[in-house]
Structures are given as structure tokens and as C-alpha cells.
């Protein structure tokens, strides 16, 4: 315990240097901006800025990226409350009640409860990361390749088959991601795969290209094809403050939201959809009868406070599996993993011993970033709202310039820009036909790691796959994977039968 405290203080000392504070501030501000702007999210923003890993030192850039990651969550809620178009999935639930509140003239209160709730839940979850990440890391050291492989299998399963509407489309996206990850040299034998003799492909396909292509370019192409005639309406702002009753209703909702959200971040199950919806449902159920009528009509403040807190708690706690196991469960954490890899650092249980200074500075910067974001988002919210006024032609054309920087800056190759366009078109088709994108990114980044673990595991088993059944931990995890795959179907099937029997 004392040990953790000392290391955290050390982390604050590193994160608190003027240069690192500057990176944190720029990250938070930039994150808020991309969160507010429709069309780009944290994953895209971090991806576009990955080229800086070539020049900026690891600690500074991880603090910077964490700021963007965090800031985008704050900014996203502003957009979903004020604009009548749902943005990223994470803030979809916030949009349901937040929008209603804004329409009945309570935009300010909704923004305030979202920002303060994000701060409260984010801070609680950061404390959890501080306390539990070292413990998980200590435990994870004991895991061998078979256990790791099954954990990755679990991440693949949840991210593709459980989240999203369709298992087939989720799995297709995952396998497309795995296929992209295959391009290049095989890690173990050095065998070239799917390079077609193109030298640029020997090093594999850059994460930046895939992320920026799938998100930014596809988004712009989708907008020009289908959204030209969509008219967005903006709700009017009101003073950003909360009444005494707003506070009384928000505080328990924040705490419940944090309690629901944090566990979901810890497990490799990915996505903020489930915790935010759960929190929303819980708030609706627990609301006093006189407040329950506000849900879906004039907008209930609990319906913003809870999900927004759950969202931030999940996103923060998701750093635990990323830092301790090296397993990303969302687009953004997958790209953060990519950033670590650019420095030759492989997140995992050893990270806490091999790069202790970096990890603790990163964790300390989360505390600092949360405070910065509260200041950036409460008094200065009017500034960010102005970003919503950027007209669409300039917005999307501008996004394409930044996409070019990210894609070209990584390897200085014009070939990558053609590839970027091709991936953009792929993303457009996926978006049009409702394929999830997270499995592509997670599959691409985790695929090569999982393959290496699989082959090492089978080596340990002397060529036999039975090794997964002989080790108790691996077997348990394997059963969890099967459960995750089968249970939702079973529940659906039973409900279906009940309905048709009635």
C-alpha cells in the first residue's frame, strides 16, 4: 500500500513538470474539441497524432494521448446534449435524456451534471486503477501463453459477437481485422504473408491507416453521400448551473453510475453501451414517482448523470486490462496499445516493473487531467459550443487534411494515401451495412499477439491443443468464452419461447 502511494507521488512528480502539464493540457483541450466536433472521436484523434511517437518521448506522448482520450468523453456529451443527432455510441444514452432536458430549456443543468458526473466517476475509477492495476499485474505475471491466448479469445468474442446487433457482421468485422493484421512478416518464422511483392506491405499495414481510414475518411464519404440534406438543429444554451434539487438527484446517480461502469471497464468485455444502458435503466427504475414522469418527456437529470458517470468510469477502468494484460477492449484503447508498441513497449504485467515511471506518470496524469477537464468544461463550455457552428463542408474537408497528416506522417509514403482511400471505402460499406468497426481495429492489433501466444501455447503442450484443457486457469477462461457466446442466445431463445407460449 505504502509502495503504491510512493510510486503515485513519483508519478505526480513526473507528470507535474511544466512540459508534461503542457502536454496534458493540450491533450485535454484537443480531446474536448474532437469530442464536440461531430465526425471525429478520440480513436481517430489519437490515431491521426500517432506519428508524433517518432519524436516525442514516451511519457509525454502517453500523457498527451490520455488527455485526448479523456477529453473526448467530456466533449462528446456536450454535442449529444446540444445537437439533435446522436454522435458516438458512448453518449447515445446521454443524448436521450440530455436532449429532452435541453429542449425544455435545461441545457445548462444537463451539461453541468454531465461534466461534474464525469469528473466524479472518472476520479473514482482512477483511484480504482491506482489500487487494482498493480494487483492485477502481479497476478497476471503468473499467466502463461495458454491463459493469455484464451483471454485474447475472450476479448475477441465479446467485442465482436456480444456487442452490436448481429453476430455474423461482428465476426466478419473481426476476421477482416485479423486478415489486415496478417499482412507483413510472420512474427515467429519471419515468413512474408500477403505482401504481394509490394515492399511497403512488408512492415504490415499501419494502425493509423486503418483507424483513420475507417473512422475519418469513411465518415466524410458517408456524410457526402447520405447526409447532405440532413438538417441539424441545435438546442439553445442556458446558464450552466445546478439547483439544490439537481444536486440532490445527481449525486446518487453519479455514484451508482460509477459503481455500474467501473467493473465493466475492468473485464475484457469492451464497449460502454452495456454499462450506460444499465445505468439508465437503473436510474429510471429507482427514480421517485414524481421524477419518473420526466424520463422521456421533459428529461430527467438522473438519466444524464448516471449514464455519463457510468461511461467515464468504464472508459477509465478499461485502462486496467490495457496496462496490466495488454488487452485492449475498445477502438481507443487498441490504438493506445499501438502507441505503446511504437515505443517498443508491450503493455502487460511486466509494464509495472519495466516501465514503472511511465505507468505511474500516466496514472497521475489521469488525476490531473480530470481536474483540468472540469475547469475546461464548466466555465468554458460556451467556447466549445461555438465549434458546433463549423459548417459541414469545411468540417469534413478539414478532417481529411488531418487524416492525410496522420497517414502520411507515419511512414512518409504516398502509397499509404491510396491505401487510406481504399480503407475509407471499406469503412463506408461497413458503416452503410451496419458492421461494427471496433472488432476490425481490435482484431488487427491483437491478432498478431494472439497468434504468437497460440503458437507458444501449443509449443508448451508439445504440439497438442489439449494444453488449453489441462491447465485449470485456461480451462476456466475457455468456459467463460463459451458462456459469453452461448448465454445471450439462450436467454433470447427462452424469452422468445415464453412470448410465443403466452
Amino acid at each position, binding site marked *: 500500500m505504502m509502495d503504491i502511494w510512493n510510486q503515485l507521488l513519483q508519478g505526480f512528480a513526473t507528470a507535474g513538470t511544466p512540459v508534461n502539464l503542457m502536454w496534458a493540457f493540450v491533450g485535454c483541450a484537443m480531446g474536448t474539441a474532437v469530442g464536440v466536433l461531430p465526425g471525429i472521436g478520440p480513436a481517430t484523434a489519437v490515431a491521426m497524432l500517432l506519428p508524433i511517437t517518432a519524436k516525442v518521448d514516451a511519457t509525454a506522448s502517453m500523457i498527451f494521448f490520455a488527455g485526448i482520450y479523456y477529453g473526448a468523453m467530456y466533449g462528446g456529451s456536450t454535442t449529444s446534449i446540444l445537437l439533435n443527432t446522436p454522435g458516438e455510441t458512448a453518449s447515445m444514452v446521454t443524448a436521450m435524456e440530455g436532449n429532452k432536458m435541453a429542449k425544455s430549456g435545461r441545457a445548462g443543468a444537463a451539461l453541468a451534471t454531465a461534466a461534474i458526473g464525469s469528473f466524479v466517476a472518472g476520479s473514482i475509477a482512477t483511484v480504482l486503477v491506482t489500487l487494482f492495476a498493480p494487483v492485477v499485474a502481479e497476478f497476471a505475471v503468473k499467466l502463461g501463453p495458454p491463459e493469455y491466448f484464451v483471454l485474447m479469445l475472450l476479448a475477441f468474442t465479446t467485442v465482436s459477437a456480444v456487442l452490436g446487433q448481429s453476430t455474423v457482421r461482428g465476426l466478419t468485422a473481426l476476421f477482416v481485422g485479423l486478415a489486415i493484421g496478417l499482412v507483413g512478416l510472420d512474427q515467429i518464422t519471419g515468413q512474408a*504473408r500477403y505482401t504481394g511483392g509490394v515492399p511497403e506491405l512488408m512492415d504490415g499495414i499501419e494502425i493509423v491507416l486503418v483507424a483513420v481510414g475507417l473512422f475519418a475518411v469513411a465518415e466524410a464519404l458517408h456524410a457526402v453521400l447520405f447526409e447532405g440534406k*440532413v438538417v441539424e438543429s441545435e438546442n439553445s444554451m442556458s446558464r450552466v448551473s445546478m439547483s439544490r434539487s439537481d444536486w440532490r438527484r445527481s449525486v446518487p446517480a453519479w455514484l451508482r453510475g460509477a459503481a455500474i461502469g467501473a467493473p465493466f471497464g475492468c473485464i475484457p468485455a469492451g464497449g460502454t453501451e452495456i454499462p450506460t444502458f444499465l445505468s439508465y435503466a437503473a436510474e429510471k427504475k429507482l427514480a421517485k414517482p414524481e421524477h419518473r414522469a420526466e424520463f422521456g418527456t421533459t428529461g430527467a437529470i438522473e438519466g444524464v448523470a448516471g449514464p455519463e458517470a457510468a461511461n467515464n468510469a468504464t472508459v477509465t477502468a478499461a485502462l486496467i486490462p490495457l496496462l496490466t494484460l495488454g488487452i485492449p477492449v475498445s477502438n481507443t484503447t487498441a490504438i493506445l496499445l499501438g502507441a505503446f508498441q511504437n515505443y517498443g513497449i508491450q503493455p502487460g504485467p511486466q509494464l509495472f516493473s519495466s516501465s514503472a515511471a511511465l505507468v505511474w506518470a500516466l496514472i497521475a496524469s489521469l488525476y490531473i487531467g480530470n481536474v483540468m477537464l472540469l475547469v475546461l468544461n464548466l466555465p468554458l463550455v460556451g467556447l466549445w459550443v461555438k465549434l458546433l457552428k463549423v459548417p459541414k463542408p469545411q468540417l469534413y*474537408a*478539414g478532417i*481529411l*487534411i488531418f487524416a492525410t497528416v496522420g497517414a*502520411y506522417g507515419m511512414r512518409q509514403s504516398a502509397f499509404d*494515401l491510396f491505401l487510406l*482511400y481504399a480503407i475509407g471505402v471499406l469503412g463506408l460499406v461497413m458503416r452503410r451495412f451496419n458492421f461494427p468497426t471496433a472488432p476490425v481495429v481490435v482484431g488487427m492489433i491483437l491478432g498478431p499477439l494472439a497468434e504468437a501466444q497460440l503458437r507458444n501455447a501449443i509449443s508448451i503442450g508439445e504440439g497438442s491443443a489439449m494444453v488449453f484443457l489441462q491447465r485449470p486457469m485456461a480451462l476456466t477462461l475457455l468456459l467463460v468464452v463459451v458462456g459469453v457466446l452461448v448465454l445471450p442466445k439462450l436467454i433470447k431463445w427462452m424469452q*422468445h419461447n415464453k412470448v410465443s407460449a403466452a
Partner: protein
Amino acid sequence: MSESPTGDDPRLPSLLQGLVGLGVIAIGIGLAVGALGIPSAAGYAGVGPNFLPWLVAIALMLCGGVMVHQARTGGFRHMEEGPPGEAPYWSGFIWMSAGLLLNAALITTIGFVFSCALCFVLAARGMRNAEGQSQAGLGVWLKDGITGLLIAAPVYWMFTQFLAINLPGLTQSGWL
């Protein structure tokens, strides 16, 4: 699959969905053909470098098959509602694609700043047309060109001067 089509959703053109399914099958076949050329030398690992390629190829063919089947029997399951059933605006798509592809083709010859500004102008034009802004006067072109330069140039300076990341310039000065 045990998923059942939801009763009353308006069917999206299932022909296109079938094509998407076929496309996925085609990717699977492509990967399988590629996998033929990868040696299977497994060594101690039991599985060689061609194991995952084959797995992915077969899985994609299966997924594609299921999608084709779904498209033929009432469309993809659990589709979210798309944007209001308007026809895609292809002319805007062509403008934007031209911007992106010309950018890729020209960036090393005319430099980052001008190439990106050109991409900006063409993409903004596509989006303006899509929004139905027909006042396509010279002024708007000029305004977009200047806006594009005003975004591209500082970005270029920030990366080349401040972060020392190479981006192609028209000159060797690092400013243009």
C-alpha cells in the same frame, strides 16, 4: 442463426446486401489463394504460419455465406435504421474521392500544403453540392482555397518545424 427477422422493418435493398455477402466470400477466397503459398513448417509450434490465414479465409467464406443467405431471406438481421431513404449522392462522392486520390498522387510533387489545400477545395465542393448549395461562384472556390491553405500550412509547420516530422514540401525550406 437463431436470430429472427424483425417483422415490420422496411426492407433495405437486399440485392446490395447479397453483394456485400459475396464480397466477403471473395475476400475469403482471395485469402485462401494467398494461404496456398504460405509454407506450413510448424516446427515445435504445432501450428505454422499458414494456420491463421486458413482459419480467417474459411471463417470469412462462412460469414459471407450466412450473409448471402440472410439477404435472400428477408435481408440482414437487426439492421439499424439508415439515414432517411434518400438516394446516395454520387456526384459529391466523386468530388471527394477525386480530392483524396489527387492528394495521394500529387503530394510528393507539389508538396503537402498545396496538395492538401486542393483536397480541401474538392472535398468541400462535394459536400456543398450535397447540401444543395448551387451558388457555386468563383468566390466560394477562392474562399475554400484560402481556408484550405490556412489549415494546411500551420499543420505543416507544426509537424515539420515543431515536431520534426518529415512531410513533403514544394521547396526544401520546410516552410512551403
